[in-house]
């Protein structure tokens, strides 16, 4: 299995699928957050300079707060993600898919120091590369996961296609594939679209055939699956 998805089952027997984020996405998110922190600190230091000793003290306190609590504040907010993570559509959740708790958020961010050891986030990188769920030490101890935010289902915008009832019942995976094809249709060349649609021709009873008419009916099935009716 190459898939890194983690399944979290609720007490009601519903399975939520979580997709842990890998090293590179998290590295770039960290880089963005780091630059934001640097910018804020620089701005505060500029203003505080005018206040003399009080300003220096203030700058040090802001530095301290940014260093340790910048991620905690954002993770406990509604989005569950720092601005850097937000850019890459990541968020921090508990292992069971619930929003991260204050204690867990603090734990994972305090343990960032340990992740930094022995140098340059050595332990974090090794841990994330070795684990299927890409956790660093802080995530392991806090029982948290950094996951991709669930994306809204692709919207097919082929309003001119007439909805067609599928010729056979379709499993959810097949439905998703047909809808994904419809969503990609505007970005494909006509020939490629016909080729791909031919693979799914049996869903509208055209097995073995291909051509613009078949494509139109396959896309019609996608419309049907999305709930549109003639």
């Amino acid at each position, binding site marked *: 299995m190459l898939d890194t998805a983690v399944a979290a089952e*609720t*007490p*009601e*027997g*519903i399975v*939520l699928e979580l997709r842990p984020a890998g090293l590179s996405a998290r590295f770039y998110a960290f880089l963005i957050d780091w630059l934001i922190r640097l910018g804020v600190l620089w701005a505060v230091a500029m203003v505080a300079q005018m206040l*003399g*000793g*009080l300003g*220096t*003290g*203030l*700058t*040090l*306190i802001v*530095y*301290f707060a940014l*260093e*340790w609590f910048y991620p905690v504040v954002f993770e406990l907010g509604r989005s569950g993600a720092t601005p850097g993570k937000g850019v890459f559509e990541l968020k921090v959740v*508990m292992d*069971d*898919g*619930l*929003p991260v*708790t*204050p*204690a*867990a958020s*603090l*734990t994972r961010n*305090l*343990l*960032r*120091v*340990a992740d930094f*050891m022995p140098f340059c986030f050595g*332990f974090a990188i090794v841990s994330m590369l070795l684990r299927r769920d890409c956790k660093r*030490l*802080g995530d*392991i*101890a*806090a*029982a948290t996961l950094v996951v991709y935010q*669930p994306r809204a*289902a692709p919207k097919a915008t082929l309003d001119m296609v007439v909805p067609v009832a599928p010729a056979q*019942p*379709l*499993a*959810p995976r097949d*439905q*998703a594939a047909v*809808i994904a094809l419809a969503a990609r249709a505007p970005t494909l060349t006509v020939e490629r679209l016909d080729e791909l649609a031919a693979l799914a021709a049996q869903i509208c009873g055209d097995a073995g055939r291909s051509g613009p008419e078949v494509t139109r009916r396959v896309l019609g099935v996608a419309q*049907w*699956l*999305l*709930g549109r*009716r003639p």
Partner: protein
Amino acid sequence: MTPLHFEELYQAEWQELEGLLGRMLGRGREAGAAQPVSGERVAALYRRACEHLAIARARSYPAYLLARLERLTADAHRQIYRRRDFGVSNLKQLLLADFPRAVRAHARYVWTSAALLIVPMLAAGLLVYARPELILSVVSADTAASFERMYSPAAESIGHARTADTDWTMFGFYIRNNIGIAFQCFAGGVIAGLGTLFFILYNGAFIGAIAGYVTQRGFAAVFFPFVVTHSAFELTAIVLSGAAGLRLGAAVLAPGESTRVQALVGAARESVVIVYGVAALLLVAAAIEAFWSSARWLPPPVKFGVAAACWIAVLAYLTLQGRRAG
């Protein structure tokens, strides 16, 4: 039953649940947010939606219907099972009961951590007092000289590395530096306790060496009145953060009947309470160190008197507070 019929039949329930969830999240203020949301109703609708999702999956209903039900049940799940542990709202409960209780529950680790700090502190202190040149094996010559300036009887204000520094500057410095050290002591525990061990031993030796050196130079009359008050909070806090770190290390090394990861998660959940308290103690320590300890005009007897009161208060707080249930 066709998917459309199914949707038509249960649509109203899903919409009601969506509305209630929206109100729980504080959305839709204008639409009757005044009435409180009935938890019973939300739970009942949530279970219904779960059933509908299971049915829809089993019958391979259209993807848009499954997606809607998945989103609805996931949203409801997040709201219903949201955990609220040790949040800011519980700050009072934390300081009045949870923190001292957590410290007492970790008594073994606290004593170990205290020994790990105090033994090297005394050893380094006595060694440097006997042979002052040894200070150079702990800090550089410049640092030693700056400590000498900080505690020399000629200094205007005690504990300032440079004469230009004000009390406010030092307040900021103590917060950033000291609370940072405490957090490191805790975090280092996850590496089988080695990080914690290093930070505690190193800080003990460092503090002891400086004290020994300054005493040997004949500045004891300045140094000890300076450190004695805030150390009640500062040294205690370092010991406690070390204890929390040792707890993490112990969980990794000797997980007992659970897996290593489970043991670590449990240890972190319990010991992070100590770290909350440590941060509070160090905030108090920073304020005292910057504004009270550094004051030249306060006579040493007053400082020793207040220091005794502080030590007794801290130790009594940790041993007695929150013993009664409730």
